[in-house]
């Protein structure tokens, strides 16, 4: 396989995408089923060529063909094979091709899934997806081509190698999961556009995208959590979330998508909120494209690094075109989108969903506002003002707490309206639980948002527990089942409902973890062998410091003995200072890296960083952070994933 074959494949894919759109347009005009078949196959052809191009690039990466600029930039002969493959999404052009690759997988699945179903929405779904593919094909063909050869006057004997920070299993799977999420929303978006064009007002199309939306949402969630996990374990500043534009870019579509997966339930069940759902999916998809653009174009004021890139204007044009076309379409179809049914009461499940939706969107707006604050401030005041984490935290903490409260309140409300009696019955236990926790926390001396957060967490947990126990009791009374059978049957007959509750529980865990951040402590100090220092109730003694050379780096390894205030042994920590490319004659190309070491318990993490070394005097420079409750965030993540899988698990009758 030659690299030229890759370029040819991408060009052919582009040609096929144009043909797909033309053929299906023609089919929509004259209704000849044969044209539809051809159009479908053309769309499969796009995917085929994209797959081919991706495999060729992966092959070139593995083969270390440095005649290709991309291969020379992101891999070297020493790069392990796994990371050679992961280099596929390490750079700009490769990651755009990878985006396209995932979109092609999704498109293929959609087409094959619906082949036998005679779904009248399919032609326009395929057209929409083909247009999105076309956009990315233009980029990878003509703007930033991954198969671009290395400049002829420049012979590369070995490539640059992948950044050591990215040579990490999490970092190898974080971008693909995030992309699976981003790209996944193309499918519901395609269905939404098609439903509008076809004037399909039935809740059926909503039902057919519910699963897709949840899958995309799941991947997006995993991607975000993995990103935080990676930042926490690798970057060494002790946190998992910094409100960086790139992080925000993934968080914004997550917020609107979360709103969407909630509100489509209402459209599916009650046929309400048609317009609202349309708006949500359009915004979510646009934000996904926008997110790709923020991550990959370097146009935003990301304070991290900058690549001169011509992608900016093209992406912005695409983003605006999507919005104009979609919202324009909504305007022309406003009569079809008008729901016949209205909300009846504030104390109904419907209105609970509505408010939760509003809060999600509001939070998304707040994040958007902060992310683009430099742009806005320049437009308004003429100075570029960037905002940091304290700003985002201040704005979002109250909004987040309201969301947490709604997580508990919503599920206890009945559809249509909740009677007073039922309200009192459903809320007494959770409210009392929350209050007890609040009082206990106040007694031990805690104040402020922390108390609210923990007691709301207790409140929500209580509501979830109530829902489960009531459901089980009702089944036991009716069918005379054992607790276990009742639980299993109840969940398996109402997967999305109870899976959703489990997800909520995961969110509560995560909030507990976030709240722990309020108690973080840190200290930086230097230690000679034998000396010790004290942080947050722990004593750190440097037992010894050793040096070693490994295949791709040189390392200083510290041996820290951690004891608590009573002098009891806790653990040994071995943070390292590494120099990658240490054999490179040019000292500027050598890259230092601090490999941190963490001791974790559910209560707190002890986080150690070996920030520097003075080998002449054998002094180690250590940074210690004691971060309470961080593990709850990751545990919450696992629960969230588990809950979503329960909700997604297919039923026999589907």
């Amino acid at each position, binding site marked *: 396989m030659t690299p030229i074959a890759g370029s040819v494949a991408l060009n052919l894919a582009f040609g096929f995408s144009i043909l797909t759109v033309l053929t299906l347009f023609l089919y929509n005009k004259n209704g000849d089923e044969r044209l539809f078949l051809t159009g479908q196959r053309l769309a499969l052809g796009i995917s085929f060529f994209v797959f081919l191009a991706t495999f060729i690039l992966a092959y070139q990466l593995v083969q270390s063909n440095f005649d290709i*600029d991309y291969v020379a930039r992101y891999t070297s002969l020493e790069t392990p094979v796994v990371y050679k493959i992961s280099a596929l999404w390490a750079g700009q052009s490769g990651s755009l091709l990878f985006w396209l690759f995932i979109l092609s997988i999704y498109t293929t699945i959609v087409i094959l899934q619906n082949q036998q179903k005679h779904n009248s929405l399919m032609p326009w779904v395929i057209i929409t997806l083909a247009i999105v593919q076309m956009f990315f094909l233009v980029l990878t063909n003509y703007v930033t081509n991954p198969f671009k050869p290395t400049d002829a006057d420049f012979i590369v004997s070995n490539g640059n190698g992948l950044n050591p920070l990215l040579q990490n299993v999490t970092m190898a799977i974080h971008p693909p999961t995030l992309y699976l999420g981003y790209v996944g929303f193309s499918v519901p978006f395609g269905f939404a556009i098609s439903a509008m064009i076809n004037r399909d007002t039935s809740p059926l199309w909503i039902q057919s995208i519910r699963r897709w939306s949840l899958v995309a949402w799941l991947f997006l969630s995993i991607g975000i959590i993995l990103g935080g996990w990676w930042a926490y374990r690798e970057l060494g500043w002790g946190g998992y979330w910094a409100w960086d534009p790139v992080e925000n870019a993934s968080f914004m579509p997550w917020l609107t998508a979360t709103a969407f997966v909630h509100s489509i339930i209402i459209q599916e069940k009650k046929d309400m909120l048609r317009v609202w759902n349309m708006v949500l999916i359009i915004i979510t998809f646009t934000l996904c494209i926008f997110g790709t653009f923020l991550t990959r174009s370097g146009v935003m004021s990301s304070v991290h*690094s*900058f690549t*001169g890139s011509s992608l900016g204007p093209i992406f912005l044009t695409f983003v605006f075109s999507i919005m104009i076309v979609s919202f324009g379409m909504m305007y022309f179809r406003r009569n079809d989108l008008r729901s016949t049914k209205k*909300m009846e009461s504030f104390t109904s499940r419907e209105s609970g969903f509505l408010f939760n939706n509003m809060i999600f969107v509001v939070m998304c707006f707040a994040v958007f506002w902060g992310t683009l604050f430099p742009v806005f401030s320049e437009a308004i005041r003429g100075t570029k003002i960037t905002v940091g984490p304290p700003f985002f935290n201040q704005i979002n903490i109250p909004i987040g707490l309201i969301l947490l409260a709604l997580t508990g309140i919503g599920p206890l409300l009945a559809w249509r309206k909740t009677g007073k009696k039922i309200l009192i019955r459903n809320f007494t236990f959770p409210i009392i639980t929350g209050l007890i926790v609040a009082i206990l926390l106040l007694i031990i001396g805690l104040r402020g948002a922390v108390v609210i957060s923990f007691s709301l967490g207790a409140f929500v947990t209580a509501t979830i527990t109530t829902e489960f126990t009531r459901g089980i009791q009702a089944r036991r009374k009716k069918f005379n089942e054992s607790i276990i059978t009742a639980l299993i049957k109840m969940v398996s007959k109402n997967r999305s409902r109870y899976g959703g509750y489990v997800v909520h529980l995961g969110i509560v865990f995560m909030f507990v973890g976030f709240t722990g951040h309020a108690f973080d402590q840190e200290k930086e100090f*230097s230690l000679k062998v034998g000396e010790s220092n004290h942080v947050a109730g722990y004593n750190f003694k440097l037992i010894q410091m050793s040096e070693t050379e490994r295949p791709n780096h040189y390392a200083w390894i510290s041996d820290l003995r951690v004891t608590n205030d009573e002098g009891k042994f806790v653990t040994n920590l071995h943070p390292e200072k590494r120099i990658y490319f240490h054999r490179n004659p040019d000292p*500027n190309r050598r890259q230092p890296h601090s490999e941190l070491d963490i001791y974790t318990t559910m209560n707190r993490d002890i986080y150690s960083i070996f920030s520097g070394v003075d080998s002449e005097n054998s002094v180690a420079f250590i940074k210690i952070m004691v971060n309470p409750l961080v593990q709850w965030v990751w545990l919450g993540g696992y629960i969230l994933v588990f809950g979503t899988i329960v909700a997604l698990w297919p039923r026999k009758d589907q």
Partner: protein
Amino acid sequence: MNSNKKFILMITGIITVVIFWISWVSLNPADEKAMATFVSVDELLEDNITHRTKLGGLVKDGSIVISETNHLDCVFILKEGDLELEVKYGRTRPDLFKDGAEVIVTGLYENGVFHADELQTKCASRYEGDLRNEKSYNLSEIDS
């Protein structure tokens, strides 16, 4: 009809409260480190700006001086074009901080010295290897 009006009222209420909240925080951030003005070294020196600012530039070759006593305190020269600025920083330095590195510092300018409390270097997600030492960095791109 009546309940519909109530909903619309409620929704408008929420939106108003939120807009008020966001603009309030934007105007009066609780934490002094919440915001920083992005300026060039030129603007900083000329206008003698003393509130919190953010600057971008390159670390001048050979200018990094690290304290012998605690290894944390460090002084270096930030270069932007021909302009130079002395920067003091007293916390753990990022791994990629070295001569010639592209950095962004945030802090306060006082008596000719910039006291930074944040120092950021090139981010991993955008690590674009440079084959021939080309400078893809361009200050005008920071914030456009």
